[in-house]
């Protein structure tokens, strides 16, 4: 094995940790620019460029969103999934990546159940790799689309980013933080732009060490990551409530039964009623009636569908960045 290297292709997006605030600002600006472009002109941005989507996990919105984003830019895409490829025959991630590269893929979008798989793929192929979700680790485009959603909904400038961009904004992320790459990505990005992120949930789903996600990272004043066990107390301080899917099997072996979880942590109509300005977000997939009441998901305070739309927009920008093209 060659010496261990973390010199990835600069077009890669593996973790929000690799993004400087200036990178975030550039991605936001490119997102806005691509969004405002004439459709026909936009369809030439990545013309004759080839992109592989490599999915080892099922996905609705992320896969479709990357695919539609690429196609709207004129790129050629190919989808490889573990269910219908040589992966089933035991081909390694490295060999799969090298094969895609040999076939002309200029960048790879990867979703994988193992944390760190995108880092491996980026190392062995040297290609720009876009992380579309790896295990419990990262889902950086989700954090970027969440950022754009928050900025637009709160009436802030969504085409730039500084350490002050989210100053004074508090975001409560509630649910199965332990297993959530979405929570990690947001908690490791938003405070660097000035936000306070409160992670909320029971001990079993939210270990205390989550408070150290940004340990050693220099943060703007009053920004950072906190832990809360009481949703109502956390919502008192919140501008944004981001709810995460809860999988019933994850509650097995915890002190909480489903009913108790719903009582303590569901974003219910009653809770929402107390906070008429609270912005409601959810990365999906939603389990209505569990972590979030159906009415809350459908309420005007909910930005859930906008999140999906912004996902498409943000992914255009990271694809353009990956392939070094200019909008």
């Amino acid at each position, binding site marked *: *094995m060659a*010496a*261990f290297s*973390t010199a990835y292709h600069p077009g890669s997006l593996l973790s929000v940790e690799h993004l400087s605030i200036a990178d975030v600002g550039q991605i936001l600006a490119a997102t806005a620019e691509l969004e405002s472009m004439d459709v026909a002109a936009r369809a030439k941005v990545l013309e004759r460029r080839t992109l592989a989507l490599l999915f080892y996990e099922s996905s609705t919105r992320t896969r479709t969103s990357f695919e539609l984003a690429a196609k709207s830019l004129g790129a050629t895409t190919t989808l490889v999934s573990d269910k219908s490829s040589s992966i089933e025959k035991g081909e*390694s*991630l*490295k060999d799969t990546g090298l094969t895609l590269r040999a076939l002309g893929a200029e960048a790879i979008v990867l979703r*994988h159940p*193992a*944390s*760190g*798989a995108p*880092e*491996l793929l980026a190392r*062995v192929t040297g290609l720009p790799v876009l992380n579309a979700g*790896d*295990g*419990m*680790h*990262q889902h950086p485009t989700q954090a970027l689309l969440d950022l754009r959603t928050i900025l637009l909904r709160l009436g802030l400038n969504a085409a730039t980013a500084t350490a002050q961009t989210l100053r004074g904004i508090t975001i409560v992320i509630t649910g199965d933080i*332990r297993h959530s*790459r979405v929570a*990690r990505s947001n908690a*490791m990005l938003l405070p660097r732009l000035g936000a306070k992120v409160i992670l909320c949930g029971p001990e079993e789903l939210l*270990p205390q*060490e*989550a408070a*150290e*996600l940004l*340990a050693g990272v220099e943060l703007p004043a009053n920004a950072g990551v906190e832990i809360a066990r009481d949703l109502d107390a956390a919502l008192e301080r919140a501008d944004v409530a981001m709810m995460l899917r809860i999988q019933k099997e994850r509650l097995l072996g915890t002190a909480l039964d489903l009913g108790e979880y719903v009582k303590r942590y569901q974003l219910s109509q009653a809770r929402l009623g107390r906070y008429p300005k609270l912005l409601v977000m959810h990365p999906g997939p939603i389990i209505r009636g569990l972590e979030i009441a159906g009415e809350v998901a459908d309420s005007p305070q909910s930005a859930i569908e906008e999140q999906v739309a912004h996902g498409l927009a943000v992914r255009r920008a990271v694809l353009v960045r990956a392939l070094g093209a200019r909008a």
Partner: protein
Amino acid sequence: MKELLITGGRLIDPASGVDALRDVLVRDGKIAAIEKPGGFAALAKTLPKQFQIDATGCIVAPGFIDVHVHLREPGQTHKETIATGTAAAVVGGFTTVVAMPNTTPVNDSAESLAWMLDTARGSAVNLLAMPAATAGSMGERVTDFAALVNAGAVGFTDDGKPVLEDEIMRAALISAARLGVPVSQHAEDTRLTGGCSMNAGPVAFRLGLRGMTVEAESRIVERDIRLLEEIERAEGLRPHLHVQHVSTARALAAIKSAKARGLHVTCEAAPHHFTLTEDAIGEYNTNAKMNPPLRAEADRRALVAALLDGTVDCIATDHAPHASHEKEVEFERAPNGITGLETALGLALRVLHKDSGLPVSRVIELMSARPASIIGLKDRGAIIVGAMADVTVFDAGAEWQFRARDSRSMSKNTPFDGAAMLGQVKATVCAGRIVYRR
């Protein structure tokens, strides 16, 4: 009559308490005589140069003994063979290594042990082995300890697959006690570590990896110590528990307390555990993945302190070669283990001697006299007249950089590629033969 002369060096033999300039004469595989410098001047004039080692500026120490190596033969010879693993051992100054039983098939019978120890395997050093404590290392049925000791076993272990059942571990400790050999335990409650690939804590959380808790190690150590006490009380035996590669402050505390109560507990420390922390994993470096995992800085410091205060009895490498394609996979899927034979001395002198003030003689003791006593080797681990002529000559001040590509091991899975080393082996003598010289 085969003679070998080692002259000009500083003999440090912790077992006999010698630390002085001495020349050493080896004859027919044994230490024949030790004299003040120049004491063999007449012989030096006539003995051919290839039978002389000029140890000027170097330390002459007992050959190093590693009670914990994986040589992968039989069955995994794409990773290492007994010949290649021991070729790496001599570069590191080791003259005796103890092979773990997790080969394919598992070394759990007198026949498999005899095959492994056969000279036909081409070992460059004294090869010893600890066969499996239970059949197939399945943890269900204790192997035939008497037959295995008769065939050369120096202890028993299910390394990597700890003996979890109290009754099986009790039976193993009792059988081993009757034969005067240790049971060597990989302390990990595997019921608590399913799906885990590194140390539990903030780093694992950030990387999205499941973590092994400190308790998963200490619980087994504490359980085994409890069994020792029960057996001493009920059976009137004195079983010997050897705890492999201790990695946590909590397990060290349990061992220290057990020693203070007079129980026969020994333990080993691996160079990677006293050198690195979990931060070495960085962005999923599978060459920093091993079991027990690299721990937090507080645990690393506790391990260094335990090496300084004598709680830790010996240094063992847990040399665990893996092919590059096996390591170049998703972190969670990568096998545990790193190579270690060629970096042990360089790390021990750098971290324990230079950075932490442990005298060189204590480093040598941890790598020779102490491991010899743990596995009951009476004729090795010391440079005294009549002992086996296992000698390591090293330059304790040599600063160099380890390069994985230069390794004699078949595998290059090491987190120490490019790492600074202090102290370099200049010659290794095994049973009176020069097996390595640089």
